[in-house]
């Protein structure tokens, strides 16, 4: 049951979340620029965050919001490390196209 303060049903939040997640997945899969891929990953994380928050309100529990803080923290750390890696890759290889980074090919 939607909570009395809410004007929209829960399903709306979850649909938006699912759409955002799908956009993120497609972005990771089709784009070759690692910066875009990063943004897509952020999109996926935030899609999940959205559903966490919505469900948290719906279930009247603070647990979901706790997770959101965790996810935000981890996402920030991940971006720091990821960008540093991208910078160092660019310095050594003069390109950041992910299709060129295939030295692990078997």
């Amino acid at each position, binding site marked *: 049951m939607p909570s009395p303060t809410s004007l929209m049903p829960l399903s709306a939040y979850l649909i938006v979340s699912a759409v955002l997640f799908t956009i993120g997945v497609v972005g*990771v*899969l089709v784009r070759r620029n690692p910066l875009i*891929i990063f943004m897509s990953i952020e999109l996926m994380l935030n899609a999940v965050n959205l559903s966490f928050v919505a469900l948290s309100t719906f279930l009247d529990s603070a647990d979901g919001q706790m997770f959101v803080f965790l996810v935000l923290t981890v996402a920030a750390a991940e971006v720091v490390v990821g960008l540093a890696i991208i910078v160092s890759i660019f310095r050594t290889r003069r390109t950041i196209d*992910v*299709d060129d980074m*295939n*030295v*692990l*090919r*078997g």
Partner: protein
Amino acid sequence: MLNVSFWVLFFPLLGFIILGLLGRLLPRGGILTVAWGACGLSFLFAVINFISLLGTPANARVADTVIYHWVSSGNFSLDFALLYDPLTAVMLLVITGVGFLIHIYSAGYMADDPGFWRFFTYMNFFIFAMTLLVTADNFLFLLVGWGLVGLASFLLIGFWYQRPSAVAAARKAFVINVIGDFGLMLAIFLIFNHFGTLSYQGVFGQLNSSMAGSGLLTAICLLLFVACAAKSAQLPLYMWLPDAMEGPTPVSALIHAATMVTAGVYLVARANPLFYMAPIALYTVGAIGGITAIFAAVIAIFQLDIKRVLAYSTISQLGYMFMAEGVTNFAGGIFHLVTHAFFKALLFLGAGAVIHALAGEQDMRKMGGLWQRMPITAWTFLAATLAISGIIPFAGFWSKDSILASVLAQATISGNAWFYILWAVGVLTAGLTAFYMFRLFFGIFFGSYRGGPQASAEHEEEDEEDEVAAGHHERMPRYNQIFEVPAVMSVPLIILGVLSVIGGFIGSLALIGLPQWHPLPALLAPVVGQSSVSAIVEPSLGLEWISTGISLVLAAIGILLAWRMYGKGFEYKENRNPLYQFAFHKFYVDEALTAVLVNPIMAFGRAATRFLEGDTLDAGSRGIATTFRGVSAGLRRLQTGYVRNYALAILVGAVLIVIYYAVRR
């Protein structure tokens, strides 16, 4: 009684370790200090021990010192213990004493060799191994010493490892010795299985007259004798000894006189309580000894290489020792071992001096007339030659006389025709010995010099490969360029020369009217049994004179014949007589053996390498490897290296998991 055998063993081992680790860095003087010091101290302690033994009553002359407990399991225990009794005492004196003289001599002989330190390392190791062999108080540590002696001989025979022939000789010696080791091991298994202990006292103490002649004891004794035959170069395992001449000459002296070949004679004497109980084994020992004695003597007559003549004479003399032990005259065998150690060491060192003076030449055809140039060598060599020929009163006479007399005594007591034949073989061999030894002596020292740069040049053409590989051959010197060896080599010669002259007086002098004087047989009697003394003292003097007289006459004939043929200088005449050729080529034993035994085994080995190892074992493991390579070649295609592929795979996996849970519910 004092037992300092530990120190007799300890010093050569210490010398071996020091030289082995640091020898490369030490100066020559340092190497000699360590090597001579180790061997000299060892001899010193052997003498101290012997003096202490003499001060003990005859019935208490045995000491068994436990160094440490090795194994203790259930009711079986085995100690590393050193036995000291008259037999060990005599052996230790010979090993360390003659070994020490050879060490001194080697300093001169090996002076220019780049492997100087290596040589003395091995020499000390050899002394250690041999002293361990004779001091062990049980069969197991006897086996340890036995094996180490084989290893030491392998290292020394192959000392000049740049020469293919030396490596082959070393390998041959090792393989044949391992056959002997195998016999010894089987004997030890049988002994342990039956007696439950391995110590000499434990085994000999359990013997009783009901076992006499049993198949078990006969088997044990025959297996022991297999080991002895391999170590002491008896038929049919003698082939390694002539080839062992590839080692440096002092090594030959050490192997032939003080160590190694004496081990077999020692073991039979040590295990005499077993052999007393196994008459068949005793007959075998005597028969093999007799056959070997005459067989080797015949070969020796036709050899041209002076060291080979001596090698075959060693085999022949060892045959005498086993002949003595075959008629239970164990003391006589050990007596001949001692005198033989003196004169054979001297003969080899003398031959070494000649070879040294002639820049590596060993062929008798290129010698002659050296008497004037090398008087000390010549005189000492003459003493040794007279001794080995059994001429009264030199050392070899007394010991050989004791052996032949005891064989004849056994023949008359038992009335067995075979013993008369054995005695006849022994006497005949004495004549042959005198002949070939004087042939050698006249060949080296009499007549005119046949060598020189000219002969050397021809020689080099003949077998050029040998010369190049040897590396130390120079051109043969002119006659006036030959010089007597330096003091470091001649002093051991003189000491051994004196011993070759007087060494026989430690035996029984009953022959010349002094029946009370028999120090060595009396000394050994507690170990080897009374019969050995009685065999010498008790048979009527007439019998002994018959034996002695005949062997002396034959020896004299041999010498005269040698004088007639070679007194004016050795002259080699090609002889096409097939019998001559047969003997000249050592009865083709080596060739036959190569054809019958070595080649089939080698062929089998090659076939096994190719089919068993190549086509079966290797192919199997290669097949497994190929399979995995094929599988992985397929699988590695999945690893494209593209991030998106991995991401897609993760997505697909996640979707599948979600579907799984959705469907399951």
